[in-house]
C-alpha cells in the first residue's frame, strides 16, 4: 500500500529529526542494559558468618579454618553465648549465625537439631540462597570429617548455564523490558501528540483508512524495536558472552510478533488518552505490572493462582521465556507453539481493538 509507505516514512523522519529524543531511544536503553546487567543477580559473593559454640565442641577450630578458607564465607568471630552472637546479627556485622549445640558427638535425641542456622532475612532475596550455601558447606564438612554421611547422595548438574551466570539470563530479559518500555511509551504518546498539536484533524479529513493510520504508526516503531533488539543481543554476545545456542529465525519470528503486540497496546492507549501525559501514565501503570509479573525478577510458579494467571496474560512473560529458551537451551520452535499462539492471539486482538477504537470523527 503506497499510503502506508508514505505514513511510515513520515513517522521515521519525525523520529530521527527529534534530536532530543534520539539519545533516549537509542543510547539510554543500551547504557541501562550494560550497567544493569551487572546489577541484576542474586549471586552471593560473600556471606559474613559468626559461629555460636554452645558445647565447647572440639571441631570448632577446624570448621572455622575451613569456613575462612572458603571464598564465599568470612568468619567474623566465634561466640559462646547467644546474646553476643545475636548482637552481631543486629548490627549487621554478620548475615548468619551457625549455632552448634552441646553434646554434639554424644548420643543424641532424634529430634534435637545439632546445628542451627540463624539467618538475617531483611534482605530476603539472598536468604534462601544463603541457606543453601551454608547447609551445603556444613553437610559436606561432616560428611568428610565424621561418619555422618548423608545416606542419599544428591549430585546436581546445572544444565544450560553451568556457571549459574545471572547475566545470561538477565541480559536478554532486561533487553526485552527496555525495548518494550521505549516502544510502548513512544506509541502511547504518538497519537495523543497528534491530537494535542492538531495535525490529527488534517489526517482525519483525508481519505486515510483506520488500518492505514494505525499500521502507519506501528511499523516504524516495529522497525526501530527490532533494530534495538538485535543490537542488544549482539552487544550481549560480544561484551558479556551471552550464548546464542538456538535458531536465530525463531527469535526473529517471535520478536516481530512480540513487538506487534506491545506496539498495538501502546497505540490503543494512545487512541483513548486525552493527552500525552495521560497516555504516559496509563502506559506506565501497565508496564510496571508487566515487568513485575514477567517472571524475570521473581518466580511466577510461586505466585498465587490469580497472580499466575495475570502473568500468563502478559506478553513480556512469554517473550522472555522464548528468549531464554532459544538462546540458552536451544529450544526448537515446535516446543514453543503455545507461546507463539498466545502472542499471535494477543497481537491480533490488540491491533484490531486499536484500529477500531480510532475514530476519524467524534
Amino acid at each position, binding site marked *: 500500500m*503506497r*499510503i502506508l509507505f*508514505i505514513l511510515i516514512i*513520515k513517522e521515521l*523522519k*519525525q523520529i530521527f*529529526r*527529534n534530536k532530543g529524543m534520539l539519545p533516549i531511544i537509542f543510547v539510554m536503553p543500551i547504557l541501562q542494559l550494560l550497567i544493569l546487567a551487572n546489577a541484576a543477580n542474586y549471586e552471593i559473593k560473600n556471606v559474613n558468618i559468626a559461629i555460636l559454640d554452645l558445647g565447647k565442641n572440639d571441631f570448632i577450630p577446624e570448621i572455622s579454618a575451613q569456613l575462612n578458607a572458603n571464598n564465599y564465607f568470612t568468619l567474623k568471630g566465634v561466640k559462646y553465648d547467644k546474646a553476643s552472637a545475636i548482637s552481631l546479627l543486629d548490627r549487621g556485622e554478620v548475615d548468619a549465625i551457625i549455632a552448634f549445640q552441646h553434646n554434639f558427638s554424644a548420643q543424641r535425641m532424634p529430634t534435637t537439631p545439632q546445628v542451627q542456622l540463624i539467618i538475617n532475612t531483611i534482605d530476603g532475596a539472598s536468604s534462601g540462597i544463603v541457606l543453601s550455601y551454608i547447609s551445603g558447606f556444613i553437610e559436606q564438612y561432616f560428611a568428610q570429617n565424621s561418619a555422618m554421611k548423608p545416606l542419599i547422595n544428591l549430585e546436581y548438574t546445572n544444565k544450560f548455564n553451568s556457571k549459574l551466570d545471572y547475566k545470561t539470563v538477565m541480559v536478554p530479559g532486561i533487553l526485552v523490558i527496555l525495548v518494550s518500555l521505549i516502544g510502548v511509551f513512544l506509541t502511547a504518546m504518538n497519537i495523543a501528540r497528534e491530537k494535542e*498539536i*492538531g*495535525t490529527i*484533524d*488534517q*489526517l*482525519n*479529513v*483525508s*481519505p*486515510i483508512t483506520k488500518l492505514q493510520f494505525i499500521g502507519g504508526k506501528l511499523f516504524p516503531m516495529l522497525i526501530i524495536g527490532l533494530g534495538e533488539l538485535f543490537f542488544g543481543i549482539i552487544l550481549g554476545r560480544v561484551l558479556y558472552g551471552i550464548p546464542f545456542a538456538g535458531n536465530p529465525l525463531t527469535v526473529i519470528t517471535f520478536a516481530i510478533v512480540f513487538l506487534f503486540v506491545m506496539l498495538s497496546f501502546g497505540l490503543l492507549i494512545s487512541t483513548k488518552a486525552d493527552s500525552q501525559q495521560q497516555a504516559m501514565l496509563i502506559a506506565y501503570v501497565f508496564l510496571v505490572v508487566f515487568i513485575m509479573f514477567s517472571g524475570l525478577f521473581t518466580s511466577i510458579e510461586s505466585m498465587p493462582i490469580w497472580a499466575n494467571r495475570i502473568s500468563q496474560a502478559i506478553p513480556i512473560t512469554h517473550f522472555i521465556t522464548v528468549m531464554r529458551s532459544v538462546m540458552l537451551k536451544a529450544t526448537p520452535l515446535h516446543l514453543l507453539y503455545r507461546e507463539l499462539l498466545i502472542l499471535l492471539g494477543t497481537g491480533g486482538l490488540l491491533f484490531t481493538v486499536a484500529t477500531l477504537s480510532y475514530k*476519524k*470523527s*467524534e
Partner: protein
Amino acid sequence: MITVNNLTKKFGKFTAVDEISFEVPKGEIFGFLGANGAGKTTAIKMLCGLSKPTSGSANIAGYDLLSQVEQVKLNIGYMSQKFSLYDDLTISENIDFYGGLYRLKGNELKQKKEKIVQELGLNNQRNALVGFLPLGWKQKLAFSVATIHDPKILFLDEPTSGVDPITRRKFWEIIIATANQGITIFVTTHYLDEAEYCDRISIMVNGKIIALDSPANLKQQLNVSTTAEIFAQLTR
C-alpha cells in the same frame, strides 16, 4: 454544492449548533461569521466529517454526509484553525505527504508540488523545515496543501487568525482566485471586515443562524454601511 438541513450538534445538555440550514452553490465564497464560541468551528467540523451530527442532514459535493462521509472527504479540502502542517518536516516533505494521502503520485504529484512552491515563492526554501516559516507563510502553505487534490469544496476554519492585515489581504486574494476557478469556498472567520470578500455571509449566534444574505443586501436591509455595524445591529 453544499446543502444543509437542520444540522445540530449537542454535547450533553449543551447545544453548540442549533438546527442550521442553508445552501451554497458552486463557486461561491460563503462566509460563516460569528463571535468566538458561537459554534462556527463545530459546524465546519461536522461538514468536514470530523464531527458526527447529533441530528439533521447535509449533502456535500453530491454525497450524503451521514452515509457517504469518506466520499465527501475525497472531494473536500480542509484547513483547520490549529496549524496542521508538520513543523518537523520540510515544505517539500509536507506536500509530498499530504499529496500522497490523497493518492497523488509520480509526475502528477511532482507538478503540483512545483506549482505550489513557485506560486508561493518558496522555491529556495523547499527543503527548509516548516517550523521555521513565519505564520503568514505557514497559512498560505497550508491553504495550498489543502487544494492539492483539486477538491470541489474548500473548508477554511479561521484561516487568517493571528496574521497581520497586509498578509490577510494577500491571503484573501488567493482565496478569491481559487474561487474564480470554480471551487466553492466555505470560510469561518471572526474578522468582520473579511465579510466584504464573501459572496454571501451568515451570522451565527449561540448556535443559530440569525442572518444569511450577501453583505450588500444585509447592509441595505439594516441601513448600515459596514459589516461591523451589521453585526452590532443583529447581536444587540
